[in-house]
């Protein structure tokens, strides 16, 4: 079999313990999802770092472009009224 077919790249997400979200740990190559899970177990959880693993083939992830960060994220900057500190309350109201 000479025509080379490389194992695709997978992104690995690990939940370190119940109650926490899955977090991106890194990536690895594997022939299919099942092998990606097995490899992820060996590469990223050799010391009990996880209780659950997700694998996603990297090509299926759509990422935002940092060059468009302006139009993407700046609109939130002038919306201070979304934060509690925007509202004036008398000091007597201690917790709200």
């Amino acid at each position, binding site marked *: *079999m000479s025509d*080379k*077919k*490389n*194992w695709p*790249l997978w992104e690995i997400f690990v939940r370190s313990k119940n109650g926490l979200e899955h977090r991106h740990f*890194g*990536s*690895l*190559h594997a*022939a*299919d999802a099942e*092998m990606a899970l097995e490899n992820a177990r*060996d*590469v*990223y959880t*050799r*010391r009990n770092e996880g209780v659950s693993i997700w694998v996603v083939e990297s090509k299926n992830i759509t*990422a935002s*472009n*940092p*060059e468009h960060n302006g139009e993407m994220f700046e609109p939130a900057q002038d919306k201070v009224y979304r934060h509690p500190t925007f509202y004036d309350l008398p000091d007597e109201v201690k917790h709200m």
Partner: protein
Amino acid sequence: MSEEQIKNLEVQFEARIARDEKIEPKDWMPEKYRKTHIRQMSQHAHSEIVGMLPEGNWITRAPSLRRKVALLAKVQDEAGHGLYLYSACETLGISRDELYDQLHSGKAKYSSIFNYPTVTWADMGAVGWLVDGAAIINQVPLCNTSYGPYARAMVRVCKEESFHQRQGYEIMMKLANGAPEQKELAQDALNRWWWPSLMMLGPTDAESIHTEQSMKWKLKRKSNDDLRQQFIDQTVPQAELIGLTIPDPDLKWNEERQSYDFGEINWDEFWQVVKGHGPMNKERMKARVGAWEEGEWVRDAAMAHAEKKQARKQKQAI
């Protein structure tokens, strides 16, 4: 993009790094930054992969089950470290295949320390204690380097590396406290690994071509000579503690500097090994390329199996 625009972006880029901001894969970066990082990260990954070979040599001959499980775990960690670093490197737009090609064709370098042979069991002790010790000194500052994926990989690597050094020192300690023949083995291993370990921290500052730019990008935080001094100062008392002698007649505590003075390093030997004339260069590449080529049918079979399974699933769905 015009030259002026690029210049502008470069200025902004350098300012971000100076502010300790991290650079992430999709961010704009100067071509030189990308290339330098690919070079350093891949060299680092290759070193982890080739670094498994001198130790793999002793797995089947480890003197006890305790030593064997530890050595197996250490070698497996090194495979893992290689994989973290390769995937971090791939975020810069180079494929795993290209990276392997560069290693196998000799275009990319790996740490020259792995071109020395591991001839006795005591070498497993010396490698863990000295080689991993020097590696840690090199690597800890990289946990704060400017390129996000590299820094994150290094945090994991450093966390795992400390067991490597401790298990090596424990081996040396046990031998040094054993029968005279065992102590001799330990001393002999120290004699052979001491100088190569010092060289591992890189050429002297005057000779090092990459230092200045690398400092700016936080790929380096201390110069090679500073790192070497740190390594010597921390290792000499460890040798004394287990009754071994550092093979350097010029080694002497300098009260004024609060550091050890040490003898001349044989840089000719270093450059010979870097250029491929070390005792094990050919052997290491042969083993590595052999493993890769002999594994090809397994990789192909796994891919064929995955495709077949996928096709079966699609057929069932119709």
